[in-house]
């Protein structure tokens, strides 16, 4: 007998996902906690189906890893919103939904007849979340954007890259995903109100603004100390803090930690125990002085002494030493090493997913909920895979105006 599957924390929620790469991750977060999430696509499919990398390095509408991952757990329907029938079907679904997430250009859904008043007239508790590059209104609202330009305008791009070279963007379309993540948080907060008070809300998410949340303390440095934080790749941020080459790659070390020097003494002890040549100098009091640590001389001394030690050791050896000695030190891990991580294996993090019918390891639960476990219920939908089933689903209003059913393609 198989064990019964515990209902997800979001069981019973109905979500319409009318997004692309700006919002697909938002819908996934709902789906994996048990919501019924329906990905609504135009007849040609959403653009993220054409986004690589692909299974077997061969393009195909179901072969993109990002599409397969971000839309796993959802069902899929095709609606042509350029046609009255498609719009009628959407209206019927929206009347039954708890949440509608969309990432059209500002005003698009309104022009199709789906303004807030119309949506709420049919469904007063509906939460509608709009994700756009810059928000619904304002001087940039209609600017063209992609992940790179959003990272640029959001200020994160300036902080990445090398001291002596150009700013470099974070990998992985983080602006889109940040927008998705904050959209999910905002939507859940609004659903909390909708389910307790019966009143929906409309949420306006700006991806640029989402990126701004990643600026750490850079804005406060500008405001309070009048300094502009810059990128420091290729250098130590301060002596003892940065990326260091080792025998089989790189490690990150924060010998001084953040906001305190509590790790420094442990580091000094480590170097002494290992009798690292030259490390006696680290015991001098100047190594606890923040101003000294910022000097090129301090960085050079540190690199000379520790760099030589690190070069003779592997990432794994250094990581183990850092763990034992409680010093923040981590390998700069590659995807292959991450897939082999004993810690992630212990937690069962990677799960078998499906890409175009083939089983592929995917990141699994980003959080373990003891009572309502995370679960990826199904592969990403093929284009229109569930159109007929959803239009016939009483939970989505199938007993209502039957004309809408013929909207299926």
């Amino acid at each position: 007998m198989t064990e019964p599957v515990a209902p997800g924390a979001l069981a019973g929620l109905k979500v319409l996902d009318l997004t692309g790469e700006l919002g697909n991750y938002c819908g996934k977060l709902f789906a994996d906690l048990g919501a019924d999430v329906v990905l609504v696509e135009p007849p040609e499919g959403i653009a993220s189906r054409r986004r690589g990398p692909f299974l077997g390095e061969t393009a195909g509408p179901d072969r993109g890893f990002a599409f397969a991952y971000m839309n796993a757990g959802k069902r899929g329907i095709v609606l042509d919103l350029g046609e009255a029938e498609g719009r009628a079907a959407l209206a019927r679904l929206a009347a039954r939904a708890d949440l509608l997430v969309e990432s059209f250009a500002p005003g698009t859904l309104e022009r199709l007849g789906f303004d807030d008043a119309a949506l709420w007239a049919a469904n007063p508790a509906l939460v509608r979340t709009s994700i756009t590059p810059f928000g619904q209104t304002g001087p940039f609202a209609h600017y063209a954007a992609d992940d790179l330009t959003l990272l640029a305008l959001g200020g994160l791009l300036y902080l990445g890259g090398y001291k002596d070279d150009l700013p470099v963007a974070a990998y992985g379309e983080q602006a889109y995903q940040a927008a998705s993540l904050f959209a999910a948080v905002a939507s859940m907060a609004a659903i909390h109100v909708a389910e307790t008070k019966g009143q929906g809300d409309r949420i306006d998410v700006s991806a640029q603004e989402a990126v701004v949340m990643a600026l750490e303390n850079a804005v406060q440095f500008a405001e309070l100390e009048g300094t502009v934080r810059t990128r420091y790749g290729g250098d130590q941020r301060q002596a003892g803090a940065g990326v260091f080459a080792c025998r089989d790659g790189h490690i990150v070390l924060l010998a001084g930690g953040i906001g305190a020097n509590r790790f420094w003494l442990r580091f000094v002890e480590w170097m002494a125990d290992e009798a690292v040549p030259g490390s006696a100098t680290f015991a001098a009091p100047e190594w606890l002085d923040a101003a000294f640590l910022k000097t090129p001389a301090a960085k050079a001394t540190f690199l000379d002494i520790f760099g030589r030690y690190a070069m003779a050791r592997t990432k794994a050896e250094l990581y183990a030493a850092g763990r034992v000695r409680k010093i923040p030190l981590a390998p700069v891990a590659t995807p292959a090493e991450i897939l082999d991580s004993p810690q992630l294996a212990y937690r069962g993090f990677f799960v078998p997913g499906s890409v175009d019918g083939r089983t592929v390891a995917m990141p699994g639960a980003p959080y373990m909920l003891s009572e309502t476990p995370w679960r990826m219920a199904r592969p990403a939908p093929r284009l229109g895979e569930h159109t007929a089933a959803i239009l016939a689903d009483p939970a989505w209003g199938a007993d209502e105006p039957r004309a809408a059913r013929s909207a299926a393609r």
Partner: protein
Amino acid sequence: MSGPLDGIRIADFTWIGAGSYTTKMLADLGADVIKIESSIHPDSLRLSAPFKDGKRGIDNSGYFADRNSSKRSITLNLKTADGVALARKLIACCDIVANNFTPGTMEKLGLGYDTLRQGREDLIFIAMSTHGSEGPEAKTVGYGLTIGALTGLHALSGLPGREPAGTGTNYPDHIPNPGHAAFALLAALRHRRRTGRGQRIDMAQTEPMIAMLAPAIMRQAANGIATEPAGNRDPAAAPHNVYRCRGHDRWIAISVPGDAEWAALAGVLGLARPEWATFAGRKSDEDALDDAIAAAVAERDAGALMAELQALGVAAGVVQTAKDVLLDDPQLAHLGHWRRLPHKVMGEVTFNALPFRFTRASIGPHAASPLIGEHTAEICRDVLGLDDTRIEALAAADVLK
């Protein structure tokens, strides 16, 4: 003030980065977040730069302030039995307990989940350590930067052939981890509302970050191909990079997915060449393309060029500094992103608002960050129901510090 999470109360043991940002979001959304700290062993972010006017002080850190808006602060000496008893009494008045300590710390304080859940079937408890509560690496100390390294973010971000650069920040602390933790807590609150049952949430801070890097992981797993850092390049666009403009360290990001956008860009920069008219032509000659664009924009003003290109539908964005986003961004100003709030020591300072707007609900930040222990007496009185005599006695016994 009616926020979406009005009526929810959180016993907040989080500190430093990701944990504090999680509860900040919930506080800005209306929850009563009570930060439990101690002046004996303060949140190290309270002593992290930048400081107002550069003056180091426990209530003077802008970094701490931004991460702790809308919260209240109580100081409890958890090394005393009375302090722990008060913490447990406070937790009894809360819906959620949050911490981001290394595993075992809450248990050592007598505040582990298994203890707290006794008689509290509805309690929601979140632990967000670096590696999760158990496993061979569970006790490793971590920060956003080391988490970025462990998860592939660092290795995947940089220029080909150089040491990886990462984001230059503790990125996982700011978006992946607080975002996922807040979402999980809101989902757990829904489950509790419907069933009366709380639960334990165990979040390893490495895992949300890896979730946000899925394509490179899956490509390795399925295709056996290691994704290498590619600078700012993108297989689906050309050009797709940043280019130096006039002035000190000024850059513009330009992204051209299609031929129409290229024609517009080439027109502005005088770069129309037949061999670059198609995507394939541009992609196969991308080094020369980037060099030509770099030469053409070197004396341009980044802001003016962005406006000119955007008027033609070309995705272009100034590579803004933190000062730019704070002072010179008309869009963020239009959205009201920056909130000036009075802080009792720092005076009026700027806070990040949440990066979204609600039409109906009122969201914060409602108040600046608390001074250390600012609300100790108030919470003792109003939440814990202690009278002034008892509060004074506890203070005299060093329990409230």
